[in-house]
């Protein structure tokens, strides 16, 4: 498993702010994601209504998940595939390894899969002498650099051209050392050439799944490069990794979700390759895998059903929330310390690895609400982060000083006369103290605020006093 560093979020974030290369990448790429989504949404007048449709479809699927998963499995079996139900990451790793070993696999090509990252399948295959090769361009360089992706749809979001060049020079030592990388195209062509031979040689191809369809027993992948399709077409065995909440009832349901997915993710109307795979090679087919396996993984999802976090299972992994998040935009994905960054990660990660290990993440939010406002399935992300903060507080995981201060604040806030007195005295005093500069660069007890920015001085009056003076809201 990846060692989660979510506990060190504060240090990670601090380091990220001082990382010049990362800051360059964030400044370049953040605004373009936002602009592209906005343009795609503006071009489709029905987009808002489609968000409601998408939310309702996922809610319906989740409310009947047991039924749809069994219907899905029956269809996969009917089309010559196999379904392996796995309760956790360990079971899933064992199943994948067993399939690869039965196929005498030496190399395995991989399409991008976040559940694959979650169960750390690459490490497990490597430990057992099987070489996994990531084929999505972004995942490929992440693998060369032994990193986690920093973004769920753009794994190499944090890298710049010089990073690509140095990683490729280090890895592709068989190529002439004096070759040049003038432009992005040179990187792309080198990767395409290198990976083409890997696609052809691989014994097994592993992909993720954006959706599973109960009506037909199909798994769907969505890519722009075509790497996922080569991965699932050329090797003799195709393994699909999918978590249980990916299952939707029909082609029409999946189609409605696809209408909001690409627009929310990259701002495309539709991704280049949206591919529906159903079972193994049919009689007479000239290509396609001879074996088709679906590894269906729970790994903490069923425990979220029936809780306030059930809404999170609607997530279709478009990344709009992180693309619009001011915190993600400032520190990037690695600071979050595990597989899923940004607002969706701040809700999902505590559920999957424990709030004791990831309690900082739901606190790393300004609650500006932008994530919820762009979510294609309308997940109330700030509300869910608030639930995690409550859980953290209930389990006494918040720091002592914070608990004492919160207790003190609650005591005062429950007594309106005391609250008014306290605010009158403190705003009067602070207003007087700060009357010259209009702000405080440091102040006792609120170092956490003033370390990073100035605290504006109050103007010496409370809201209540002004409200009364103005004649009660006239």
């Amino acid at each position, binding site marked *: 498993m990846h060692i989660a560093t979510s506990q060190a979020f504060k240090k990670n974030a601090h380091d990220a702010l001082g990382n010049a290369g990362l800051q360059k990448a964030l400044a*370049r*790429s953040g605004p373009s994601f936002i602009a592209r989504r906005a343009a795609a949404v503006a071009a489709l*007048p*029905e987009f808002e209504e489609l968000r409601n*449709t998408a939310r309702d479809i996922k809610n319906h699927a989740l409310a*009947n*998940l*047991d*039924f749809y*998963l069994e*219907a899905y499995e029956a269809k996969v079996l009917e*089309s010559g595939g196999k379904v392996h*139900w796995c309760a956790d990451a360990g*079971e899933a790793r064992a199943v994948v390894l067993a399939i690869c070993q039965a196929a005498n696999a030496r190399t395995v090509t991989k399409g991008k899969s976040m559940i694959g990252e979650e169960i750390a399948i690459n490490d497990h295959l490597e430990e057992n002498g099987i070489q996994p090769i990531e084929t*999505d*361009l*972004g995942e490929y*360089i992440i693998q060369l650099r032994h990193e986690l992706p920093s973004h769920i749809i753009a794994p*190499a*979001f944090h890298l710049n051209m010089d990073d*690509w060049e140095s990683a490729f020079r280090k890895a592709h030592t068989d190529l002439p050392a004096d070759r040049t990388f003038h432009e*992005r195209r040179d990187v*792309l062509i080198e990767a395409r050439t290198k990976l*083409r031979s890997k696609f052809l040689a691989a014994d097994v191809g592993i992909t993720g799944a954006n959706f599973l369809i109960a*009506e037909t027993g199909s798994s769907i992948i969505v890519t*722009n*490069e*075509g790497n996922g*399709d*080569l991965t699932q*077409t050329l090797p003799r065995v195709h393994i699909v990794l999918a978590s*249980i909440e990916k299952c939707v*009832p*029909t*082609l*029409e*349901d999946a*189609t*409605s979700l696809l209408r909001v997915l690409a627009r929310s993710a*990259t701002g495309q*109307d*539709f*991704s*280049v*390759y*949206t*591919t*529906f795979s*159903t079972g*193994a090679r*049919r009689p*007479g*087919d*000239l*290509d*396609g895998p001879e074996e088709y396996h679906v590894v269906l993984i*729970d790994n903490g999802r*069923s*425990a979220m*059903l029936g809780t306030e976090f059930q809404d999170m299972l609607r997530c279709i992994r478009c990344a709009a929330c992180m693309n619009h998040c001011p915190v993600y935009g400032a520190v990037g994905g690695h600071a979050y310390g595990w597989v899923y960054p940004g607002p969706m990660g701040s809700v999902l990660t505590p559920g999957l690895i424990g709030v004791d290990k990831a309690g900082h993440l739901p606190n790393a939010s300004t609650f500006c609400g932008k994530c919820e406002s762009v979510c294609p399935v309308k997940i109330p992300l700030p509300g869910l982060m608030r639930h995690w903060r409550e859980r953290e507080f209930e389990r006494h995981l918040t720091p002592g000083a914070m608990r004492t201060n919160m207790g003190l604040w609650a005591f005062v806030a429950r007594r309106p006369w005391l609250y008014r007195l306290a605010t009158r005295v403190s705003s009067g005093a602070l207003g007087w103290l700060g009357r010259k500069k209009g702000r405080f660069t440091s102040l006792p007890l609120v170092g956490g605020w003033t370390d990073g920015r100035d605290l504006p001085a109050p103007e010496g009056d409370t809201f209540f006093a002004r409200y009364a003076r103005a004649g009660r809201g006239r």
Partner: protein
Amino acid sequence: MSKQSILTAIRRGLKRGPLPEHQAVMLQRRMTEHPRHLIPARSRLPHAQQVDLFVRNVEKEFGSVARVADMEAVPGAVADYLAAQNLPGSLIMAPHPELRAIPWSTRPLLEIRQGRAEATDAVSIQHAFAGIAETGTLMLPSSPQRPVTLNLLADTEIAVLRASAIVGAYEEAWDKLRAEIGAMPRNVMLITGPSRSADIEQTLELGAHGPRRLHVVLVEDAA
């Protein structure tokens, strides 16, 4: 196998046992009837305008389109395109009856092999089952007559599409597939433009792992 424990955990979360019979029947019917949801107005057009919308969208997504009057005109359109792109005349073609019926011999310089594509093939000719105007998307269901490798391995993919096979929305393409093919094919690709990647500095580059050119020869059979 953890199937039972996962199903039990799901039902525990949903605070119920297995669905009662009448509800299961309702859900089964929902799958059989597969009701449509909201379809955007942009493709709700007379057919001729749907064809135009399809062409505009293919071009918007960096594909190209040549419109020809009938199947007899396809070899000429293919030869012209290859010449304009400075590509060789050696092609791998889907063994589809509609493509095989085309009089390729009118262009003797085209050297055509039929079957699946290999890594060495530079140009493929595929048969498109449907075109979806909404986003300029080709629907390519796999079959012995329509190998998947033709969509992936060649640098240039040329798709032959009848205008009469163009529909407005994805839902109409699914219904066409259900009516004409029946059970779900092993593989159905929806392709919108040539392969691309924005993984390097979030900047679009065409031609990642799949074809870097996608050319549609549109046969105007709808009149």
